[in-house]
């Protein structure tokens, strides 16, 4: 049975101790030792015991405490003997301990080994406090927690012992009955054994220390072994995975071992390797030997060499590019290991990249496209070579805003300036297109079309990537085309002049007739007696009115048939339509056509060329009129309408009740020189389509539910100052 006083924890022990008011003195009888009859010393027995203790200490130090207990039992002829040592954990000695434990007990209390007592309230504590031998009688009377430790102690002789002057524990002897009482001789012997106990304690501590050291070392060794096993496994996996080539070598040039990956790289096999034919010195082409020599020098100096690129000969005489790095084995001085990475794929990729870059440069050159990047935060601008060529600047000169400004047309905004504006307006990050001009030192002009893409680099900084195309050739072509189209439109107008002669004559003859008639009447009224002055004034007023009417007709004709370039202005399509109707209504009426105009109120203006749009209206009206020339079985009717169209556009349609088209409407209807009229040239609709498309609109024809066709066009409602080509992506 274990002693019930064995502490679970110090705190538990403290709280579990019943309070006793019995004073210490009442359980002490130390003074009696010297009054009792003392037995004679038995030095022989004592010497034998000490010899046994010493030899135990030398041969089996771990059992010294038990031997000591048994020695006390033997020499003092007591019933129980043992040691109490200060401890903190209840099982190992500790001079700062807060309780005592019993590491060894001989005799009747043997079963209580491992038990103990508190430091501050118990017999051992009393001995250490008084720093002398004490004799107790029935100490359980003061320390009731010892009551369950049976058999009860009649007398207990306790002796402190010391290490380096510090009390660390006690030895004790107990009599459970009064068959004999401790005396002065016991006091002497115990004091003597107390000294020995000190040596035994130190031996024990050393043993514990050694045990600890051994266990720590074993633990460390186990960790190292585990690490080594893991490392070895990893290295083995690396070697066997053949992801990289691994080579064992010596400085003489031999390859003593290699994995499959390396052998594959150089096209040798295991047999070649075993024969010793594969030597790294032989595998190295002459021009790479200098690199090898530098690596060897590094190895000798530092034990490792930094990875470097080189080539090896393969078995078939070809070469393989590799990255090589390695180290000497520790303590070898001659042998080492290296990893070898096959760079063939990387080299191929590099060649492909160089080729691709060359293609890009050539492509940029051919398409007159340059590119650049601009890091907004640092103002760092990088140009492609082609962009230097387009700007006619020396390739590689640092690009600055000032330099760019020397080339950009003074009236235009450069791309980077535009980027800054867009960036400020939108907090950066907008993609957009931009057109501007360059003015070269010889004052020749170049037209640029740029597309910029906003992106963020890995640090989140705004960066624009832009391509800039030299569109000068295209621009000049467009200008030439516009001029040609304008001239063609003029030709078409002049051709229509012939057919409009009757209409024009009618428009002029009406006011001329008024002038002649009114003037004659006026003369006649003035000739009467008395002269009819009021009547004469009225007819004179009409004469002036009709004169103005004639001059309006002439002005309209002049505008319509003059050959002048396209103009961009705000055009009221209703007004433009009315003017066309005024010029052409006679011709239409002559064809016995009933013309109805349904012009929408509050029609927004469009931006465009008024005369060109009027020509389209005129063409559509004349086509409609012509289409009905053979119609006699139904009214010849034209309805011209204006109104809003989908998508912010203005639509004008001309509906006739003519012969129409067989389904489907011919695809070529708007092509040049396609005509369905016997006398037509096929220019009108083609010119009309050109005009409408140049107004960013569309023109189409659709068959009516009833007889005839409706031609219509739709153009965007305009905002002056808007340039058709400019738009934000």
């Amino acid at each position, binding site marked *: 049975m274990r002693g019930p006083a064995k502490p679970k924890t110090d705190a538990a022990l403290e709280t579990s101790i019943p309070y006793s008011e019995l004073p210490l003195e009442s359980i002490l009888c130390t003074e009696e030792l010297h009054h009792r009859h003392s037995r004679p010393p038995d030095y022989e027995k004592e010497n034998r015991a000490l010899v046994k203790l010493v030899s135990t200490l030398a041969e089996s130090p771990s059992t010294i405490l038990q031997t000591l207990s048994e020695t006390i039992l033997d020499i003092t002829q007591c019933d129980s003997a043992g040691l109490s040592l200060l401890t903190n954990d209840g099982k190992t000695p500790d001079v700062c301990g807060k309780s005592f434990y019993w590491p060894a007990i001989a005799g009747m209390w043997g079963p209580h080994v491992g038990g103990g007592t508190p430091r501050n309230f118990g017999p051992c504590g009393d001995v250490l406090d008084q720093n002398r031998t004490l004799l107790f009688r029935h100490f359980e009377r003061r320390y009731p927690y010892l009551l369950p430790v049976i058999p009860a102690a009649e007398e207990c002789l306790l002796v402190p012992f010391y290490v380096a002057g510090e009390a660390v524990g006690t030895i004790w002897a107990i009599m459970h009955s009064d068959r004999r009482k401790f005396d002065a001789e016991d006091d002497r012997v115990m004091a003597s054994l107390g000294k020995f106990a000190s040596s035994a304690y130190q031996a024990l501590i050393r043993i514990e220390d050694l045990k600890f050291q051994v266990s720590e070392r074993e633990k460390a060794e186990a960790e190292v072994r585990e690490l080594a096993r893991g490392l070895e496994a990893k290295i083995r996996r690396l070697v066997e995975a053949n992801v990289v080539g691994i080579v064992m070598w010596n400085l003489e040039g031999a390859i003593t071992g290699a994995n499959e990956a390396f052998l594959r790289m150089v096209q040798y096999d295991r047999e070649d390797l075993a024969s010793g034919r594969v030597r790294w010195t032989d595998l190295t082409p002459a021009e790479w030997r200098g690199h090898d020599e530098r690596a060897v020098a590094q190895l000798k100096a530092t034990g490792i060499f930094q990875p470097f690129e080189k080539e090896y000969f393969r078995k078939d005489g070809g070469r393989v590019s590799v990255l090589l790095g390695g180290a000497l084995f520790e303590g070898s001085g001659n042998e080492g290991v290296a990893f070898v990475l096959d760079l063939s794929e990387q080299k191929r990729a590099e060649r492909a990249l160089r080729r691709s870059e060359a293609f890009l440069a050539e492509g940029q050159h051919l398409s007159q496209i340059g590119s650049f990047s601009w890091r907004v935060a640092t103002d760092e601008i990088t140009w492609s070579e082609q962009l230097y060529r387009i700007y006619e600047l020396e390739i590689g000169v640092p690009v600055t805003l000032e330099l760019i400004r020397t080339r950009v047309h003074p009236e235009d905004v450069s791309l980077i300036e535009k980027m800054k504006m867009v960036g400020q307006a939108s907090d950066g990050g907008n993609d957009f297109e931009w057109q501007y001009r360059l003015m070269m030192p010889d004052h020749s002009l170049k037209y640029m079309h740029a597309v910029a893409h906003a992106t963020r680099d890995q640090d989140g900084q705004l960066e624009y990537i832009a391509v800039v195309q030299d569109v000068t050739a295209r621009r000049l072509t467009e200008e030439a085309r516009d001029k040609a189209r304008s001239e063609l439109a003029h030709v078409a107008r002049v051709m229509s002049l012939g057919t409009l*002669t*009757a209409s024009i*004559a*009618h*428009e*002029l*003859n*009406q*006011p*001329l*007739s*008024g*002038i*002649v*008639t*009114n003037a*004659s*009447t006026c003369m*006649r*009224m003035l000739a009467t007696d008395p002269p009819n002055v009021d*009547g004469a004034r*009225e*007819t004179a007023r*009409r004469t002036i*009115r*009709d004169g103005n*009417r004639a001059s309006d007709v002439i002005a309209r004709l002049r505008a319509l048939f003059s050959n002048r370039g396209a103009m961009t202005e705000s055009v009221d399509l209703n007004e433009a339509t009315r003017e066309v109707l005024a010029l052409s209504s*006679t011709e239409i*009426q*002559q064809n*016995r056509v*009933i013309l109805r105009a349904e012009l929408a109120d509050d029609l927004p203006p469009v931006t465009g060329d008024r005369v060109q749009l009027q020509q389209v209206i005129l063409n559509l009206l004349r086509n409609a009129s012509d289409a009905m020339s053979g119609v006699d079985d139904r009214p010849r009717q034209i309805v011209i309408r204006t109104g809003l169209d989908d998508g912010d556009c203005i639509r004008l349609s001309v509906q006739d009740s003519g012969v129409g088209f067989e389904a489907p409407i011919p695809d070529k209807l708007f092509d040049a020189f396609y005509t369905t009229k016997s006398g037509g040239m096929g220019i009108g609709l083609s010119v009309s389509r050109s005009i409408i498309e140049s107004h960013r609109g569309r023109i189409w024809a659709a068959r009516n539910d009833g007889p005839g066709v409706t031609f219509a066009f739709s153009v965007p409602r305009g905002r002056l100052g808007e340039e058709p080509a400019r738009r934000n992506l």
Partner: protein
Amino acid sequence: MVSRSLVTVVDDDESVRESLPDMLKELGFAVEAFASAEEFLASDCIDKTKCLILDIAMPGMSGPDLQRELTRRRQEIPIVFITAHADETIRPRVLAQGAVECLFKPFSETELLEAIHATLRTR
């Protein structure tokens, strides 16, 4: 008192309907003016009209259409056609249909007076 002959003008052009009647009144005629053939046909002037001055090209019923309609109704009113159109081939065609004269605008007072007198003579 000799009642004045009624000369009726049919023309869609307002300025003609203003200026021509004034002149004819100065010349001593009674004048009525209509903006279309349909208005004239609907009026009570047909029987009283001694001379019809008729525009050729008009929206709806044209001058020649009215001429045909009057013939169909057996209303024999002498007609002087007037036109602002330059196509002279129209003249022989309307004369063949029974018109007394065809004047091209602008015409003089004398030309008009002669043509009216010619119509009155046909009565």
